[in-house]
C-alpha cells in the first residue's frame, strides 16, 4: 500500500517544482515551494506507516512536524520579503528584478 502514497507525494512535489520554474509571480512561486513541502510530508508519513525495512515507527511523523516548522519560518521570511519588494517596485513579477547580472564586456 506504500506506492499510491509515494505517487501522490511525488505528484505534489513535481507540480510544485514545475510551478516554481514556470511561474513568475513571487507569491505563486512561494506557494509552489510550500506545495513541494506538502509532497514531502505525505511521503514521510507514508514511509512511517509502511517502511520498506523494519517495523512502522513514528519517526516519519516527527520529521514532518519539524518540516512544518521549517516551512513556517520560511513562510514568515518569504512574506516579509514579498512586502518589501512590493513597497519598492509596486510589482511582484520576478522579471522586474534584473539589476544584478554579469557585465558583458
Amino acid at each position, binding site marked *: 500500500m*506504500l*506506492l499510491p502514497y*509515494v505517487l501522490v*507525494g511525488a505528484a505534489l*512535489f513535481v507540480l*510544485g*517544482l514545475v510551478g*516554481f520554474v514556470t511561474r513568475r509571480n*513571487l507569491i505563486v*512561486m*512561494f506557494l509552489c*515551494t510550500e506545495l*513541494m*513541502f506538502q*509532497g*514531502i510530508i505525505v*511521503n*514521510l508519513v*507514508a*514511509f512511517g506507516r509502511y*517502511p*520498506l*525495512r*523494519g*517495523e512502522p*515507527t*513514528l*519517526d*516519519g511523523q*516527527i*520529521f514532518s512536524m*519539524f*518540516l512544518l*516548522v*521549517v516551512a513556517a*519560518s*520560511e513562510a514568515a*521570511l*518569504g512574506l516579509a*520579503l514579498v512586502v*518589501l*519588494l512590493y513597497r*519598492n517596485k509596486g510589482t511582484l513579477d520576478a522579471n522586474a*528584478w534584473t*539589476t*544584478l*547580472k*554579469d*557585465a558583458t*564586456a
Partner: protein
Amino acid sequence: MPNLGPAISLSAFVPELILSAVGCLVLLLGVAQRESVRRSIPAIAITGIIATIIVIFWRYTNANDVGGGFAFEPLAYFVRLSGLVLGVLLTLAAWAQPRDAERGEFFAMMLFSLTGLLLVAPAANLVLLFVALELVSIPTYVLVTLSRSNLKALEAGTKYFYLGAMSAALMAYGFSFLYGVSGTIAIDAEMASAIQDALAGRSGALPQALAVVGLLTSLAGLLFKVAAVPMHFYIGDVYQGAANAVAGLLGFVPKLAGMIALIKLLALTSVWYNHDEALFWVLWVVAALSMTVGNVLALMQSNVKRMLAYSGIAHSGYMMVALLAGPAAGGGMLGNGIAAILYYSVIYGIANLGAFAILGVLRVRGQACEHVRDIAGLLRREPGLALLMALAMFTLMGLPPTPGFWGKMGLFGSALHVAQHASSGPAGPQATWLTVLVIIGVVNSAIAAAYYLRVAAAVLLHDSDEPAEADQRLEFAGMGAFMCGFLLLVFSFYPNALLNSGTSAALRFEEAPAAITAAAPPPAAESSAR
C-alpha cells in the same frame, strides 16, 4: 517508538546554548532605547563568541558525548573551533556594516547561522541534520537582505531565498526517501547497510529506485549549499548584491556545513570503496564541471566580487575531487580526502573573508570598490592592505608556501593516492578516471592563477591617478582583515596546527563499513606534510 538511541546530557550543548542565548540577547538589545546600548551590540556578539571558544577549550576538547541523535566527536570539535574563530573574524569584518536600526537583527542572524554550523557536525540523524542545515541557511537569507540599504541587496536576498527554499525542499525530499528505504532516521551503520543493499539491488527494484531518487535529490539540495555546478547559478548575483562581510560569510559557513553534510551522505553509500559506480560518475561530472565552469566564469569578470563568487564554484569543485577520493586510504591529509576537505574549507574561508574584508574597507571617492580598476595602485596608498590582498590571492591560487598550497596538495594528493592504490585492483578504470580528474583540477588551478594574479598585479604593480584608500571609520573591518592575514601566515609556517585537528576529525570515516572488505593500503607519504 522513535529511535533516538541513548539520552544525552544537556551540558553537551553548552557552547551552542551560549551562542544562541547571546543571539537572542543581541536581538533584544537591537530595539533598546539608548543609542549607546545599540552601539555595543557587535562588542557583545564578539564577547559571546570568544566566551564560547574559552568554554570549549576549558571543558569540551575531548568531548565524546553521543546520544539523542547527536554525536559530539572530534569532527564536532574541529567545526566548533574553526567556525567560532571565523565567527570572530566575521564579526570584526561586519562591525560597522548594518544600519543602526538593524544592528540587532544582523548580528543575531550571524550568531544563529554559526549555531547551525556547530550543530551540523554532530548531527547524527536525518531530522537534526536537516534542521541544522536550515538553521545555517535561513539566517543567511536575512543577512544578505539586511546587509546593505539598496535595492541590490534586496534583489540578491530574494533570489537567494527563493532558490534556497527550493533546494531545501529537494534535500528534504531526498531525506524522506533515505528514511523510507532504511526505516530509520539515525545516520548509522544500520542505515548505511540498508542504503547500500538498496543501491546494489539486493532488496528489490522498488527500494533501488527510491534510493537512487533519494540520493540524487538530496545531493542536488546539498550542492546548492556548496554552490557546485548544477546549483551554482545564484552565486554571482548574491555575492554582488550582498555586503562584503556577508559575502565572506557565505564562502565559509554554508559551504563547510554543506560539505560536512555531503560527507555524511556519501558515508552512507559505498562509493569510497569502489562500488556504486553510477554515483561515482555523477560526482565525477559534478566535480569536473564545477572546476571548469567556475573558473571560466570567473575569468570573464572584471568585478572582483563576482570573480570571487564564481571562483567559489571552482573551489567547491576542488573539494569534490577529495570527496570522491574519500577517507578509505587513511594516513593523514595526503591519503584521507576528508581531512583535506576540512583543512581546505577553513583555509579557503579565511582567505576569501580576508579578500572581501579588504574590499569592504576600501573607498574610491567615497564609493565602495568593486572593480579591478578601483583597487589598482593600492600599494602606494595602503601598503598593508595591498600586501594582505596579495597574500589572500596567493592563498586562493594555491601558491607555495601559503596554506592554500598545502590544502590543494591534500585535495589532489589524496585523490592520486587512492588512484594509485586502486589501479591494480578490480576498480582499475575508475582509478584512471580519478587521475584524469586530478589533471583537470591542476589545469584549472593554472587557469585560476590568471585571474587571481590580475588582482594581485593591479594591487601591487599597476598605478592609478586616484588610488583607493581605507575608510578610517572602518577600523574594525581592517583589523579583521589583518587577523585573516595573520592566520594565513601562521598556517603557512605551522600547517600542522590545523592539519592535525582536521586529520583526527576525519579519522572516524576511515573505518570501512562491515559490509565492505576494503584492502586498506598502509599509510604512506606522511613525511612530506612537513
